[in-house]
């Protein structure tokens, strides 16, 4: 039951952080000035910019009042409009793009965790063996290779033909991205998209070919992201395993007569995974915050893709809202990580 209070207390900490975040984004709004801010609210309907702003409750000579009306806008979802990559209300754009990122992030996390835990256990149980060295090279390369480079290499290797480069044509990508921005993917589907996650929507509509296509489109981005995450957590699991296996309690377990395999799986690994949870949480929050380059290269319509367009065209409301959303994602993943950690490690006092 104590855990419940811990969660509540931990969640309350979010409130002041959130306040800070809104103040920071408001400073951004203030810096952009009236013209750009008004652009999000169909200013052409009004006589001048000041009238358009006044209609939304913004008054650039009164910072405090404007801050509060800005808060009202933020929390009611009245986020103005953007014209690129689609011309729509910012809220609608987020609704369309964000689920795609969630799908990508979850898929990449699951795949990398499924691979990293057994692999890290194997490597960590044999420090300095050839397998360990191979793992080290793999991790290092995962850190060192930029994701966009890897993305292009994967497209060239497995996607459709690019110029004269030979191709395998396994996955539906050409060298310039698979989808045309001018006819966005979400308008062309003959199925309704209640969740905006194509995999699920296709299943709901019972459209297997569409599901298959969505799945194939997902594989290369997920592979690219997985490589990076895997590299990160593999090193942590390995370090945790080596660290834990030098502890006294491992000797105790062996002295009890626990077989070697069980010592590794039950006693060492359980302790080794604790620090990994923290790292994984950070990685997941960065994924959810839109992996800009990967989404851009694959023309994957996620929130990172949206962020690139809003920033490029200086669409103030898009920038403000996305900054706000990234902040919230980071806070929530941190909360979840803390709770999971408290759940896993009984030594955490809550």
């Amino acid at each position, binding site marked *: 039951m104590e855990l419940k209070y811990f969660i509540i207390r931990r969640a309350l900490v979010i409130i002041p952080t959130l306040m800070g975040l809104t103040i920071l984004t408001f400073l951004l709004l203030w810096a952009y000035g009236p013209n750009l801010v008004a652009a999000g609210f169909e200013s052409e309907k009004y006589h001048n910019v000041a009238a358009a702003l006044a209609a939304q409750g913004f008054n650039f000579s009164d910072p405090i009042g404007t801050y509060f009306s800005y808060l009202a806008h933020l929390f009611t979802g009245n986020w103005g409009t953007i014209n690129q990559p689609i011309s729509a209300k910012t809220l609608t754009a987020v609704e369309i793009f964000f689920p795609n990122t969630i799908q990508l992030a979850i898929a990449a996390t699951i795949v990398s965790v499924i691979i990293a835990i057994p692999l890290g256990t194997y490597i960590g149980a044999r420090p300095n063996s050839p397998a360990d060295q191979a793992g080290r090279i793999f991790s290092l390369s995962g850190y060192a290779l930029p994701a966009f480079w890897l993305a292009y290499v994967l497209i060239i290797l497995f996607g459709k033909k690019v110029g004269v480069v030979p191709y395998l044509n396994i996955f539906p990508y050409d060298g310039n991205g698979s989808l045309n921005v001018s006819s966005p993917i979400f308008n062309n589907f003959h199925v309704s998209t209640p969740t905006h996650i194509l995999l699920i929507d296709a299943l709901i509509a019972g459209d297997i070919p569409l599901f298959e296509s969505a799945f194939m489109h997902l594989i290369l981005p997920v592979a690219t992201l997985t490589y990076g995450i895997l590299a990160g957590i593999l090193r942590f699991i390995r370090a945790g395993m080596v660290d834990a296996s*030098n*502890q*006294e*309690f491992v*000797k*105790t*377990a*062996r*002295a*009890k*007569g*626990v*077989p*070697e395999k069980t010592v590794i799986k039950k*006693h060492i690994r*359980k*302790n080794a995974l*604790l620090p990994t949870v923290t790292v994984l949480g950070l990685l997941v929050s960065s994924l959810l915050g839109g992996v800009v380059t990967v989404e851009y290269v694959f023309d994957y319509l996620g929130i990172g893709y949206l962020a690139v367009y809003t920033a490029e065209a200086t669409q103030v409301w898009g920038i403000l809202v996305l900054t706000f959303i990234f902040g919230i994602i980071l806070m929530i993943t941190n909360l979840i990580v803390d709770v999971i950690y408290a759940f*896993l*490690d*009984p*030594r955490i006092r809550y």
Partner: protein
Amino acid sequence: MVEENITVTEQKERLKVQDLKVRFFTSKGIVKAIDNLSFSIREGESYGLVGESGSGKSVTATAVMDLIPDPPGRIIRGKIYIDGFNILTDLDQLAKIRIKSPTDVIIKRKKRLIKRHNYIMSGIRGDKVSMVFQEPFLSMNPVMTIGDQIKEAILLHGRVDIANSIIKRETMNAQEVSKIVDTIMAQPDTQTRNKIIVRLCGEYAIPELAKPFTDLFENSTDRDFIINEVLSLVNTKKTGLNLEKLEESKNYFLLRERILDLNLELIGAEHSGDERTAAQLEAQIKELKSTMRSQFLLYSIKRRFMRRFIDAPFEKFAEGRTLELLTQVNIAGPERVMTSYPHELSGGMLQRCMIAMAFSANPQLLIADEPTTALDVTTQAQILDLMKEVNKNYNTSILFITHDLAVIAEMCDRVGVIYGGNLVEEAPVKEIFYNAKHPYTTGLMNAIPRAERRFEKTARLESIPGSVPNLIDPPSGCRFHPRCKFKMDVCSEKKPKLVEIEKDHKVACFLYSDEVEEEPREEIP
């Protein structure tokens, strides 16, 4: 069946260590941690190993369990007989060591043999020998509850016995009960009677009923009434589980134990050069493994994926046994302790839990590696009492390792004094305290603060000058000679042999005997 007389056979040795040699290969050189150490522990005896820090006490203890961390350490040579079986039989084959220079050593490990060695050791550790460690806080897994850790130790060994006693409980009938009640009532002495009751309750997997039964036998003499009471109480404990499934589990573990035994025999046969027997045994093991695979395929799949259901009766038994063990080591609120994590308990309580864990399989030998060093004095006394009690009640041999001479005087029957990886003196505890021979031992004795010497003029505490030698490059000859008051020329040239100079009293010093220890010429220095 209900005899409590323990006959101590003086000759039977529970542990025998012969010519143990342990080396640590570090980047600074080879640490000669243990050199030609030999000693033995008899049944029911408690043997103390004393020495300064860094003299090799703990290394000896870990070597006996074959738990020396590798790398950097390795047992190079020696025999360690636990209950007659030499656990280092295939030591030579486990790894090939090639020394280019003291800092450059190539160790080639044979994976397959090490795997078999580990398999056999995990059958021996915890079952025949168990160990209590120095730092209770560090020696418990921080993310598992105490109950889970003790239960794990219980369930690792003697599954067949557990299954048998559960079956016994489930099939207990009036006839059997009346027979048992008769034998118990025939025992006139209350204390022995209670002991028998406790033991029988353990045998029938109803340890929680020991208390009501002892009360029952104390308060009533009416045979029929007692029988009825016992029957009804036992019936409340019957769970009506599926005995066929339990039989299957039992057969499975029976087969596993058989394979382990055969492996032990195989190692013995291989070592004695009896190739025909070895081949036969190997074939037998292969056959048993294949029958195990075919006969218990479904069972092992179920065990892997539905362990909770398959192991439920065992788990329940283990829970009862854990509670019993924790009560035995005088822990307050054993139910609460079972669900606690190590960080929630004090050092003394954790050390008790460690001892409970060590006794989960009723081992014949307990190795206590400075079990009281991290504890305060009152807790120390309690822990020592506990270990003494166990030593007496279960006739368990104890190898007690400490630097505290007071603890030695309290606990041990025989004492070995270790210096720089060598045993320098070995004698019964009284001899050591009143008739110490070796200059190092006398130095240790003089370093004990004594109340009666407080007012003497020479009230200063005597100490041995110098410090423990660096074992990478130990002194030649007798390793103690640079610090010795009676140093002779021979001391730095030759190594004295451990010789029996009085009955049961062995000393390695040229003051008492001229015998020189012959160093066998070996590749490893």
